[in-house]
């Protein structure tokens, strides 16, 4: 018999507005990173989360190519070819930074020392399976980088993506059809239309933007529940 757990926390539907823009989405992810966390931001859109971390948050950024305490992108005279991020973009170091070799850098991930990583995705399943490294297209050159290590190793994996492809296909799905990056590893999904938590009770909608829970439920094949009605 199913029982419904009632809590006092309710899903917030932001209806009098449109979907989140890219900057707004990055700010939302930054808001949810606990102060003092050790965090790895994936290549691409996740990197922009750093621009929204509040001053004094104490968040320490890890980059897979061997650094803790990574600072913002380097400009002008600060550009140093020996100091880049995972996307090979020149960056800076902050006070308290440290450097280490690749085996140590990935031991940090695999060993469960990173609190949060933020990754992009092609698809996330309702169990938290992640597909973000390969479209599976026959002519695509496979390239995984550190995606599998991050998905498997970080204590919490946040995904940042649009909820639908440009063609309107949902990216939060019952089962991933693209090749998998990791099994049951994603705990939160931040999208332009809403924020989802994935847990033992399935997918919960925490917030919506420019749409309602009911509308999302009708457009997704995944069962999504509002907060306070987790089964």
């Amino acid at each position, binding site marked *: 018999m199913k029982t419904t757990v009632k809590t006092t926390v309710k899903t917030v539907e932001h209806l009098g507005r449109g979907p989140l823009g890219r900057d707004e989405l990055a700010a939302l992810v930054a808001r949810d990173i606990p102060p003092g966390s050790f965090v790895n931001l994936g290549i691409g859109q996740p990197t922009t989360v750093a621009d929204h971390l509040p001053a004094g948050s104490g968040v320490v950024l890890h980059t897979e190519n061997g650094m803790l305490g990574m600072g913002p992108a380097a400009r002008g005279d600060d550009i140093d070819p020996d100091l880049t991020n995972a996307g090979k973009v020149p960056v800076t170091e902050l006070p308290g930074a440290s450097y280490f*070799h690749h085996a140590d850098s990935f031991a940090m991930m695999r060993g469960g020392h990173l609190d949060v990583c933020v990754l992009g995705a092609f698809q996330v399943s309702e169990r938290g399976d992640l597909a973000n490294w390969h479209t599976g297209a026959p002519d695509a*050159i496979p390239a*995984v980088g550190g995606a599998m290590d991050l998905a498997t190793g970080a204590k919490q994996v946040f995904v940042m993506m649009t909820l639908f492809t440009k063609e309107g296909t949902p990216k939060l799905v019952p089962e991933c059809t693209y*090749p998998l990056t990791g099994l049951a590893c994603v705990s939160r999904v931040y999208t332009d239309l809403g924020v989802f938590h994935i847990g033992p009770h399935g997918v919960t909608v925490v917030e919506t933007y420019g749409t309602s829970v009911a509308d999302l439920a009708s457009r997704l094949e995944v069962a999504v529940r509002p907060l306070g009605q987790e089964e």
Partner: protein
Amino acid sequence: MTAVLTDPEEAVAGIADGSTVLIGGFGMAGMPVQLIDALIRQGATDLTVVSNNAGNGDTGLAALLAAGRVRKMICSFPRQSDSWVFDGLYRAGKIELEVVPQGTLAERMRAAGAGIGAFYCPTGVGTPLAEGKETRTIDGRDYVLEYPIKGDVALVGAHAGDRMGNLVYRKTARNFGPVMATAATLTIAQVHHVVETGELDPEAVVTPCIYVDRILDLSATEATP
């Protein structure tokens, strides 16, 4: 005893056809470009190259690939905005590719250097990169059995070395260098300058000299005008 050399040709002498060559660098940071250029002139072919990427632009590893010397690439991230040399060879069926998750790539070389026969790794479980590999559940968690990658040769870009062969690195150019230096039969490092023995702070040495066979001192060629 580490040989300190100034001639790139001497530094890469004796690398045989068919060798497995570990090449340091993450993108161009830490890539031993002068050693790779010397290897191209030296002529060894039918190589298996292990490196994080599969070449950027037209220099360094990309030039070695363009010269047709590489039979197989073992790497984590071949596809980049500037990996046109590799992309062309791959699409033409002229090069074999083994994609390995980045941390597993590093750990497989670390294992080779540390005398580990194989290890159970959680990365990649349930994905296409674990297909055909032995798996095991340990304490409720699933793992994939991964084997070491041993190099015949490692080409490493470090910052400075001393006459004994101790190496220090600079910032994120360290990346795979210290791991690869341990994992090859013949380790060759290029450095921006060589200091006298005793001048490197022993507490700061990252690659101890026991791992290093040859050092190419670039200070003469890199001297600023």
